[in-house]
């Protein structure tokens, strides 16, 4: 699991800005405190916007990918999200990293919703994942077996996530994919930490049930296939 964000509301904004970014492997330039970078980004300063982009792109991309399921669609929706960011950043009121992340992911959530609206408006388009559209993690690269396994389970993961409520989904994605702490997630979603824990529990239980049902279905199909083959061999 990714390193959780070390951002807490109590911390000084300028100190927070120097901490290594969650999951991105990038470090915020110590010379530029986050609050000041936001200030400059509001004025459409390109260097500040570039730093924000490089820092938050992986998180937005992962969030979107977990929802839409294909690399191509994830790239489209991520692009739309960042264009909306540049258009709306002048009016953004966030003062620290966590508030900014919350604002950014809210935009991504809206863009994902818009994507699904468009998708359902054109039901004739294929909604299954083409072979080359399955994401491959860094760890999987170069390992064909791992890639195949990943592809098999990927559609299942996305389908399970899409069965959750919006709040459950946000909690598990922020916690398990983006690596934020429960307290941070609570602040981003404006909830109590206990409520976040409860949502997290229900979300993971729902995902576990979904995976169990899928496993049972797969096992049933395999056993019926094997049975059919055995029958044919005997004949």
């Amino acid at each position: 699991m990714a390193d959780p964000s070390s951002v807490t509301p109590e911390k000084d904004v300028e100190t927070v800005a120097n901490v290594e970014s969650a999951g991105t492997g990038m470090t915020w330039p110590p010379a530029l405190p986050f609050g000041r970078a936001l200030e400059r980004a509001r004025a459409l300063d390109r260097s500040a916007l570039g730093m924000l982009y490089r820092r938050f792109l992986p998180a937005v991309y992962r969030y979107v990918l977990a929802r839409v399921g294909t690399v191509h669609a994830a790239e489209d929706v991520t692009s739309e999200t960042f264009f909306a960011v540049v258009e709306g950043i002048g009016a953004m009121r966030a003062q620290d990293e966590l508030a900014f992340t919350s604002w950014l992911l809210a935009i991504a959530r809206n863009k994902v919703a818009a994507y699904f609206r468009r998708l359902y408006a054109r039901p004739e388009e294929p909604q299954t994942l083409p072979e080359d559209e399955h994401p491959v993690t860094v760890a999987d690269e170069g390992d064909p077996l791992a890639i195949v396994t990943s592809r098999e389970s990927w559609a299942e993961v996305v389908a399970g996530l899409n069965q959750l409520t919006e709040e459950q989904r946000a909690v598990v994605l922020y916690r398990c994919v983006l690596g934020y702490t429960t307290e941070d997630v609570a602040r981003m979603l404006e909830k109590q930490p206990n409520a976040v824990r409860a949502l997290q529990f229900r979300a993971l239980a729902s995902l576990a049930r979904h995976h169990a049902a899928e496993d049972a279905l797969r096992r049933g199909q395999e056993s019926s296939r094997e049975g059919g083959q055995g029958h044919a061999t005997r004949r």
Partner: protein
Amino acid sequence: MLPEDRLDALLSLYSENGRVPPDQPATTDLNGRDSLQPLLDAADQLTDLASVQPSPEFIARLEAQFLAEAAYLQEQAGAEPPLLGNDMTTLPGSDPATLFPSLVPPILGNDAPTLPGITWAAVQEDGTELDSVPGRLGSARRPARRARLLWPALAAALLLVIGATTFTAAAAASPGTVLYGLHRWEQSVQVRMAGSAADRTNLHLNYAQSALGALDAAVARHDTGAAYDDALTTYRDEMQATATSAGSVPAGSEQDTLFAQLRQLTTRGRADLHSALAFLAWSERVQTTAVLADIGDSVLHVTQVSMVYAGHGQHLWQVTVSGTDFQQGAVLLVNGRPAGTVISVTPTTLVAQLSGDDSAPLPSSMGVANPDDTAALTGNVSSHEQENVTPSPQQTPSGDDHGGDRGGDGHGGSSGPGSGSGG
């Protein structure tokens, strides 16, 4: 401890250690019945996502588009209402009021009498001054005369205001908008009024740079219609004008700097245009390729297309395209769209087969698209009938023969219907 809290604590341990430590069994039973292990497994499947990275190409492409959009918005925000806009105020040594005195919006109200043609009956026809307060003019005829003067004056003032507003709006007009033509005219006026060749070159460079920014932003917004076309045309024109103008700057460090800026903008333009190609329609790819050629990039060029009809019921044309810089994997373009089957490609010749009847009109344009998305067309299309296998009766040359095709090979160069349209 509640199961939610225990799960949360285990997930936190996961995030810190990457796995459940041996002394913290994840399968601890809850009330002797449930286990958290399936939930942790479900979380584990999600954590695979945490190591997914977008492709480097996507990161670079989106960053360029993102920053181009920011530059575009910043430019839009900067092009503010002041008279005739930013561009006019950047003109060296020029005051908008001096440049276009008739376009300065009149300030209505107390200063109204200063408007041309409006006297508010302050002066009588015989030249004697009257009280400027209308209510104190005793004569019944005076209001009527005032009204006669007032309406044309108001109309003139209104026209002035509309004109000034239009020019102000045009100064901030972006490519693809109705007022962009006026905006370009204003820019040309500024260039003409520039004091020196160096000033002119700087203006051209600025306009080319702005056009390239607008082009990038149009691509980023997938607005590849009029906005892209206008920006591309402006970029090409301004780059050519910059090159010409920089040549007339006296040799020295100033000229060197200008040429260096021009080279820099050319390099950036090549990169941006190549990136844009993938998002464009075929017609725009052709235009963009032409602009790439104009700024010195090595791109394909099509000079001539020759079509030979196979006949004998095959309904096939053999198409030979001549040109330069064709790449392996290139495709044939017919009327701006891919068509036919490519048989062979060399750097200078592409041979393809195209199904069709010889009675149909020839395509108005044909060309080639390379795998790097550059494309070029030509209208120089000629057609020939395939050499007839059955010998035709030889016509005996007569004294009144005016030359023509003595060989009788049928290669007239334009024997097909509608052929030889030319460039």
